[in-house]
C-alpha cells in the first residue's frame, strides 16, 4: 500500500515537472516568436 502511494506520488511529481518545463519552453518560444513577427511585419496578425 505504501509502495503504491510512493509510486503515485513519484508519477505525479514527474508529470508536474514535465508539464512545467514544457510550459516554460512554450512561453519563452511564444514570446520570442511573437517578438520576431512584430519585428518583421509590425504586428502579429
Amino acid at each position: 500500500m505504501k509502495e503504491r502511494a510512493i509510486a503515485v506520488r513519484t508519477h505525479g511529481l514527474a508529470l508536474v515537472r514535465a508539464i512545467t518545463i514544457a510550459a516554460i519552453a512554450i512561453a519563452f518560444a511564444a514570446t520570442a516568436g511573437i517578438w520576431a513577427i512584430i519585428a518583421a511585419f509590425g504586428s502579429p496578425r
Partner: protein
Amino acid sequence: MNSRTVPIYVADNSLSSQDTFGYLCRSSGLVLLLSCTAVVVLGLLCAGRAGPPRWPGFVIHSLHRNLSLISVTLLIVHLLAPVIGGYLGLKLAYAFVPVLPAHIRIWTRLAATASDLIFVVTIVSAARVRAGYRFWRATHLTTYLAWVLGLVHGTGIGTDRDSILWCDVLSVAAVALAAWYRVRAARRLAGQRPL
C-alpha cells in the same frame, strides 16, 4: 580613378533599443494574457476538484502554482521591458501607481491596478499559512478582477488589436467553460455533504 568618396546607401533594418524593448513588451503581454487565462482555468479546475482520473490529486494544484509563477515572471518582463528600453517614456512607477500621472491613458491605469492585485496575491499566497485561509481566499478572489482588467487593458490599448481579439475570444471561452464546470462541481459537492 576617381578619388572622390562615393556614398554607399545601405538599407537600415536595424532595430533601435526602444523598438526591441517595445516589441518585447507587446509579445510578453500577449503571452501573459494566455498564461494568466491558463492559471485562472487551472484555479477553477482545482476548486472543482477536476483532473484526469489517473492523475494524482495534487497535480492540477501544483501546475496552477507553477504556471502562476511563470505568469508573474512574464508580468515582470512585461513591466520592465518598456522601462529599460525607454519605450513611450514609461516609468516603473506607472506600473504600480494607477493614479499617476495625468497624461497616462486609462488602459495603462487598469493594467497598474491588475499588476498590483497580482503581486499582492503572489505575496499572500507565499505566506498563506501566516495570512490565514479567509484572508488568502479573499485576496485570491481578486485575481478574477485582475484577469478582467488585463483583458480590457490589452484590448483597449490598441496595439496588435487583431491578434489580441482572437486571444480575448479564446480566453473568455476557456474561462467561461471552466467557471461552468466549477459551478457544476460546487453543486455536486454540496449534494454529497452529509446533512
